[in-house]
């Protein structure tokens, strides 16, 4: 149940099956390690908070890699597309359009869709006012809708 939603969350954010596999494995290992820190409340909130942290760790490591390989910057930026094409897979339309959203908005939409958390919980998780979360969400969905219909 949770594995599918967490996998979807990682996949939509990275667009890469292998990376999603790794992140999902890491997530469940972290869950086992940190289960003692779960103090009740929304399990999904706790789960997706860890998932979000794992994704940010991944982004940071990717950034480090980018810095190390400055000469290959362009290739790394299109890492997802290259990987998928080399795999002979077709990038689905939604994934392509999601790639056009800014990272923060994309993450917010994915969090809402896959975690099933309320906006209040999401706003708390992101440490921002709920009005800000709603405004970002609205802008993001509007853009996504425009891109998908365009």
């Amino acid at each position: 149940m949770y594995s599918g939603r967490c996998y979807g969350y990682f996949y939509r954010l990275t667009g890469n099956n292998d990376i999603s596999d790794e992140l999902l494995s890491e997530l469940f290992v972290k869950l086992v390690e940190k289960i003692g820190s779960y103090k009740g409340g929304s399990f999904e909130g706790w789960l997706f908070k860890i998932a979000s942290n794992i994704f940010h760790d991944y982004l940071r490591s990717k950034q480090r890699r980018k810095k190390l390989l400055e000469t290959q910057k362009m290739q790394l930026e299109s890492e997802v597309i290259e990987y998928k094409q080399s795999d002979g897979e077709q990038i689905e339309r939604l994934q392509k359009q999601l790639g056009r959203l800014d990272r923060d908005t994309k993450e917010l939409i994915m969090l809402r869709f896959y975690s099933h958390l309320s906006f209040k919980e999401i706003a708390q998780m992101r440490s921002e006012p709920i009005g800000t979360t709603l405004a970002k969400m609205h802008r993001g969905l509007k853009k996504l809708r425009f891109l998908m219909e365009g």
Partner: protein
Amino acid sequence: MENRNQENLGELFGKFFDAEQVESCLKDFQQAERIFRDNPAPEPDDMLIANIKAEIAMRLGARKAELARRRIYRRAVAAAAVVIVAGISATLFDRTGREPGRLATASLIPTAIWESDDVTADDADLAFFATEIEQIENEVMALESDEDTSESDSTIAELEMELILISSDFWKE
């Protein structure tokens, strides 16, 4: 987006946007819901799930072993603490069973003085007895240093008797 948390999105948006915007927001949400429903993300591979389960089982096993080891250490430490406390207690009780110094000094100091609370009176008594003893000792020594006479012998004997008497009075209870 599915409203699985029983959020009233219309009401929630109404707090931040005007009526027209609320309607637009709700429409966008419904559209997004449809888009995500029509384009589901791939599911994790069965092999991946099996690997994750195996990894978790391995880690849980290792954690159980670690917990068991810690429990044994804790019990060992607790047992050691009990032994140490018991040893210290036995030593202390053994000491309190005795009357430290009492027996050794009782033969030298009269019990009445030893147990008396009147320190001033005891000091005066001790000073008096000590002076008398010293005085008699001096007299005995003076007599012994003189030439032997029958009279002096009897005087010495007399003084010695007095000294013994005073001494015994001093240590009497």
